[in-house]
């Protein structure tokens, strides 16, 4: 028996078991969440390649699964990342108890988790691009549902990821077979351009963000959060593995400066458009683009602390988005409810839902005492020495997304349009209060999350010497 086989087959079996109990969203949320936690424990702590005893029986679980000439390997270099992935999945599936998304989120969502896990495990890691494509396919099934039949965002996502997959596969072949180094500038230029195209799509760098706003406008907020968390986390890890594996890539003149410029452009673009939105879901879509830009600024520092901050920001995003999406799902009950006018007074209809949505957004902006603040503050202090302009971009992001959060707070606290009240069950209340508390707790004590999340990249010996 080998660990990758166990991980992937159990994930598949969980997906099937979740598909069976129809119309029981709580059971589905519980099975998905508990199953993901168990798989995370397995990935993090199982003894690999050495025999051990279970109930008196000798068991040996190997780290490698060879299949059709390629290998899936779970070892010290990636087990923390796989564990983080499944724990993030468990957190999101648990929160779905409140958000009640369509049931594809559990069934297809688990398959997407398995696909991203496989992208971490596959050797050579270049073929992770294929698994990201599968994840994008699953993302379409999660985003487009009978409640949201609009397919525009989903189809664009699929198109873009397909093109990215091809660009990365060709670039990967060039890197491995044509002897691309800093001594072959023309080949290096071609390979870098192809990689830049691929990662621009994966990181939703404008204009490759085109799938996000239409998807945000119509899809269930929780489904959107799940998709963006999964795709972006996988994309960031993939990018870091490229930087870790190819020394010449890190030495391409101006590479990190270019990444910072792209990050600055994303931050400015996302920040300006966040203020201009009149739909709550689209506010989050553009706030996300801003957040991806900040993450690229962290990668663009080109120093280990910067990479760690990028991973930490990625971990914090899981909490921010889940808290925002749980709250949004409570206040956005009908399609079209996300319009500015329709949300007037929503805080009186569902106070806890409104508080959760606003705190998630404020944390995304990097408000003090929220989970988003410590990472941005630390990044700001790093960037002040390396690239002051990038530091100003982070301040712009804080001001613009923060202004949007205040504007929507004003709307949610406005005069209610009707006397309707959306009640919450005890469990929903617990989840919402727990999410808000976690957001504030991680703002006050970032050491609870950051060291652990950055451990996910411990196997990248070149980036983290």
């Amino acid at each position: 028996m080998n660990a990758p086989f166990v991980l992937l087959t159990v994930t598949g079996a969980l997906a099937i078991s979740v598909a069976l109990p129809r119309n029981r969203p709580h059971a589905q949320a519980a099975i998905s969440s508990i199953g993901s936690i168990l798989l995370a424990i397995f990935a993090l702590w199982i003894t690999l390649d050495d025999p051990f005893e279970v109930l008196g029986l000798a068991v040996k679980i190997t780290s490698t699964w060879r299949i059709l000439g390629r290998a899936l390997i779970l070892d010290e270099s990636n087990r923390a990342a796989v564990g983080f992935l499944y724990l993030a999945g468990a957190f999101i599936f648990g929160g779905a108890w409140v958000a009640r998304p369509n049931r594809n989120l559990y069934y297809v969502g688990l398959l997407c988790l398995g696909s991203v896990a496989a992208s971490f495990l596959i050797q050579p890691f270049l073929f992770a691009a294929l698994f990201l494509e599968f994840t994008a396919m699953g993302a379409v099934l999660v985003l487009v549902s009978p409640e949201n039949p609009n397919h525009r965002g989903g189809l664009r996502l699929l198109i873009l990821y397909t093109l990215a997959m091809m660009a990365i596969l060709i670039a990967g072949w060039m890197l491995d077979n044509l002897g691309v180094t800093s001594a072959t500038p023309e080949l290096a230029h071609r390979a870098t351009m192809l990689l830049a195209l691929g990662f621009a799509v994966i990181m939703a760098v404008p204009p490759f963000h085109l799938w996000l706003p239409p998807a945000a406008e119509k899809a269930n907020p929780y489904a959107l959060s799940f998709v963006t968390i999964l795709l972006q986390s996988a994309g960031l890890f993939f990018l870091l593995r490229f930087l870790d594996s190819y020394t010449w890539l890190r030495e391409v003149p101006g590479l990190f400066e270019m990444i910072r410029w792209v990050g600055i452009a994303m931050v400015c673009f996302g920040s300006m458009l966040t203020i201009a939105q009149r739909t709550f879901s689209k506010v989050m879509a553009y706030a996300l683009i801003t957040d991806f830009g900040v993450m690229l600024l962290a990668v663009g520092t080109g120093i280990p602390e910067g990479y760690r901050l990028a991973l930490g920001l990625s971990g914090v995003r899981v909490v921010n988005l889940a808290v925002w999406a749980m709250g949004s799902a409570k206040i956005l009950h009908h399609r079209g409810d996300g319009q500015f006018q329709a949300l007037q007074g929503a805080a009186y209809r569902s106070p806890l839902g409104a508080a959760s949505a606003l705190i998630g957004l404020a944390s995304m902006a990097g408000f003090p005492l929220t989970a988003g603040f410590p990472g941005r503050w630390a990044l700001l202090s790093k960037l002040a020495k390396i690239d002051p302009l990038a530091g100003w971009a982070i301040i712009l992001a804080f001001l613009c997304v923060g202004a949007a959060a205040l504007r929507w707070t004003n709307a949610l606290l406005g005069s209610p349009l009707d006397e309707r009240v959306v009640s919450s069950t005890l469990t929903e209340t617990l989840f919402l209060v727990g999410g808000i508390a976690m957001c504030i707790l991680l703002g006050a004590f970032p050491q609870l999350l950051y060291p652990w999340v950055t451990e996910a990249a411990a196997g990248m010996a070149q980036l983290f010497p």
Partner: protein
Amino acid sequence: MTWLEELAIVASVAVALTGALLILSDNRRLLLATLAAQYVFAAWLVSLSLPLQVAAAKLVAGLLACAIIAVALANVGWSDQFVTPETIPSSMIFRIIAVCLVLLVAFGLGGDIWSALPKISTLASYGATFLIAMGLLQLGFQEEPVKVGIGLLTIISGFEVAYTTIEPSLAVMALLATVHLGIAVVVSHLLLIGSGEKPRLEG
């Protein structure tokens, strides 16, 4: 030299023609038949660099993808009209001119664009370029799931013709074949959702 290699020019021209027909036709039955034929010719081009059995496996995956879309179309009806975005001109004359121009560009690029790949034959490189060019044009014209799906499958077929010459491992080929099937499943899902049918997946 086998007859497949001697007559490879037929496959290369045929993928260009089928790619063009996929853009020009709005008849769903004809579209699927053309896509299936395109898979036959793409497999022919793949067989120039891989054993015939492996190329046949690719053909089977492609035909399965066609079958999946066909089942969904049979559920939602074959006669629905495609909706073209208002911003894109969709008259037949415009499409014919666009197809001719793009094929000309592809013909001009075909010999050089894959020059970095050491083992690809000239005819396969032209075929790959035609497929990718026609697929991209298809994506530019339509936002309707069937047409977009066919465009994506065409692009991936073209990519595979070139990529299999440099990466012949079975695992990668199996994964790429699964991409075809996955896209077909996604297109079917979107078709059923768009028509108001409930896919099984949804319960």
